[in-house]
């Protein structure tokens, strides 16, 4: 009476897990294939050989150890921004502001990286990362507080804050934090101290390992802690959360801060691991692509990793494709757009693979019509 047979429990869980995983990966998987198919048609129509082009793309992304490294480097910030967006989604919040939070994190990390001298690497790099993340968290705090206390919708506020972030960073990089070394005319910060750099281990950027760890931590936080339970409850049913005694307002602010932290951390990793300084334009779109990554990854922390890798691979391989197949590399953006389109319009994909909406949804529908 007090416990279930362990066997049943395991079986229940296993069956549930397999079904859940298939449910969640089937749509993105088919969406990717459809996106590539349409991209292939476009390539063909524009006179290129799709197989050749895709071959070059894959080679450019995975063909050599250096190519793999480039793919991982491209994927790293996307994992972070994808996690940021996915995390906010769990609380029912749409954080369009990952871009802004990422920029703030990137430039603050750059400042800590170049301005502080004489720290050992073991302290300097983690410190710069942490402060970059915290700067992002602070920037995420703003839309959270505005939503809770004024009702301003986070989508509007974060969109506007993205522009604010662009202008702040442009100003800093061309003003107080500008690289004043002789010969420099462009807006950018000085190069960070070697002690703040994040190394590359063989061909694996350490930043990518951080990204994978971040995904694990986010998963653990969401599904194994009371905080995660609270956040998910708020996202799935705010009224029930209130009933359960969860302080919804606090959760909204906290979620935006954690989301901002992830994005800011991603920006810091980019600065310290790849760019080596802050330079306007170098991080363009990384936060926005986080939205794509989060959607493609079905807002699951572990889904974000393959989604980011796919996007990273397309970015890394695009030049090779342009070079050897003579195709404009913008075609990868078109493919990405189509993939996202099919993920968003999942009805089309579900119809194609004959996957019905989950039983739950259907039964609800059947009793929904004046049922009770």
């Amino acid at each position, binding site marked *: *009476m*007090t*416990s*279930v047979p362990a066997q*049943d*429990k395991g079986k*229940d*869980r296993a069956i*549930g897990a397999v079904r859940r995983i298939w449910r969640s990966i089937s749509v993105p998987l088919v969406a990717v294939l459809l996106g590539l198919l349409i991209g292939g048609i476009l390539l063909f129509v524009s006179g290129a050989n799709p197989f050749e082009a895709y071959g070059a793309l894959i080679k450019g992304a995975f063909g050599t150890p250096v190519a793999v490294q480039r793919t991982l480097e491209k994927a790293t910030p996307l994992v972070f921004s994808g996690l940021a967006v996915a995390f906010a989604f769990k609380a029912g919040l749409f954080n369009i502001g990952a871009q802004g939070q990422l920029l703030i994190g990137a430039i603050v990390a750059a400042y800590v990286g170049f301005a502080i001298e004489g720290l050992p690497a073991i302290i300097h790099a983690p410190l710069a990362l942490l402060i970059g993340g915290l700067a992002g968290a602070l920037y995420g705090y703003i839309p959270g507080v505005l939503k809770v206390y004024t009702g301003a919708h986070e989508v509007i506020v974060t969109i506007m804050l993205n522009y604010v972030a662009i202008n702040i960073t442009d100003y800093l990089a061309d003003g107080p934090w500008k690289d004043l070394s002789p010969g420099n005319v462009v807006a950018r910060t000085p190069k960070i101290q070697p002690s703040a750099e994040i190394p590359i281990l063989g061909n694996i950027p350490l930043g990518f390992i951080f990204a994978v760890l971040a995904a694990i931590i986010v998963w653990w936080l969401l599904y*194994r*802690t*009371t*905080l*995660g*339970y609270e956040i998910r*409850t708020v996202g*799935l*049913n705010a*009224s*029930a*959360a*209130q*009933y*359960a*005694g*969860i*302080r919804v307002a606090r959760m909204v602010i906290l979620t935006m801060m954690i989301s901002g932290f992830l994005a800011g951390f991603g920006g810091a990793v980019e600065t310290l691991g790849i760019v080596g300084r802050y330079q306007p334009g170098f991080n363009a779109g990384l936060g926005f692509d986080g939205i794509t990554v989060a959607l493609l990854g079905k807002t699951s922390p572990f889904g974000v990793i393959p989604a980011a890798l796919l996007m990273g691979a397309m970015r890394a391989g695009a030049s090779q494709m342009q070079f050897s197949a003579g195709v404009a590399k913008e075609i990868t953006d078109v493919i990405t757009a189509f993939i996202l389109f099919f993920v968003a319009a999942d009805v089309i994909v579900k119809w194609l693979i004959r996957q*019905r909406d989950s*039983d*739950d949804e*259907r*039964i*609800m529908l*059947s*009793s929904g*019509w*004046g*049922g*009770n």
Partner: protein
Amino acid sequence: MSNNDASIVLEAKGITKQFPGVLANDRVDLTLRRGEILALLGENGAGKSTLMNVLYGLYTPDAGEIWIKGEHVILQNPGDAIARGVGMVHQHFQLVPVMTVAENVILGSEITKLGGYIDKREANRRVRELSEQYGLEIDPTIEVEDLPVGLQQRVEIIKALYRQADILILDEPTAVLTPQESNELFRIMHDLTEKGVSIIFITHKLKEVLAIADRIVVLRGGRSVGAALPSESTEASLAELMVGRKVILQVDKDEAVPGKLVLEIDGLHVQDDRKHEAVKGLSLQVYAGEILGVAGVQGNGQREFVEALTGLRPSTEGKITIMGEDATHLTPRRITELDVAHIPEDREKHGLVMPYSIADNLVLNRYYRAPYSKNAILDREKIAENGAKLVKQFDVRTPSIYTHASSLSGGNKQKVIVAREFSRPVKLLIANQPTRGIDVGSIEFIHNQIVAQRDAGVAVLLVSAELDEVLSLADRVAVMFDGRIVKTLPIEEATREKIGLLMAGSEA
């Protein structure tokens, strides 16, 4: 075959409708004769709504035939059904509150003058005509939002008649009415049938079926399990058909032994979502070991009252005292920690998180405490153990504790909430509509649980729009009207008639 019988206006043969995982209708037969009231009786999930949606063209059946007035028809959408004279009054009215009665009636088939202008005069005339013809007594020029619920329902009926419906499907029409309004509806239904309209009346209230139906068809588990005549049936016999076993309709309970004062509310004022005052100086007391039943027609401030009491909504004035502690402005969590259990009115909005497993739902307001978590980390094993224990103890019918709450039936959803709320120490139980829309078996179970709590010394505040529920459970009955408790009676003095009048706002 029987189609030759001219008096049959509608016939369904072998209707089968499958949803993923559920056979909602399994070879159901149904015949409706001209001018009769056919009661379709069944528990929630028995397939009544599915069958009606098939007849109204909202669903296409997987198998089976529909014959209307001797003609085999295939209904692709409600338009097809309406064209053949089938009209449906849904439980949730589909009216535009800011439009007049006549405007609502003609919506979708407007009478226009030259140039596309709506001919309001003609619309008013036609609605008035219909209203007189069928004894509906309604002014076509009034805005719908100013009408009481009972009259809004008549607007729905006129809407159907205006579209020349002579087969009316009424889906649980009495759920929102006072006993007096229900009687008025029955009179109208009677008048309609005299004028040749045939009615299918969906309900789960046995008394009403016996009072008004000419014939009764009972559905259970998607099948038609029997037909009956009211003259040959009793409430008990119908309940048995519905549930498939004997049901004790009367709650078996001993005399209450009231103890000390547990809940005291003094002059409470609460605003609704639109900032209108919904609770206007409500006062009541509940003692340990008794059930205070609050009767009232829905929408008289019950929701706002209970939400204020449980910390979900601020109160503007007045005082709430629980076990001697001022609980007027406490958070929901603080109130829960005073050992207050709350069965919320809307189980899907407040009571459960639909995409969560049953196990997770069973710790919804205790997840943060030992043994379910330690140092802010959830103990999945303990949560699962608790789930398995409660599912068994409270007879929740589910394949697994990891099943999502959304796939449970209404009765089982409610059992999950009851299990959660009753499985911890409770001093005060606040139950708002604890059995709305659930099957008889679950109602019986939940009623017994509530009485068991009372007998264990819990103070119970039961708020319900089902008068029968209040009368069968309560030890004292408080009648709520227009945001106040207008009268409190001991159960011995609480007759249906007296309470009904008080519910309608007239002093008994």
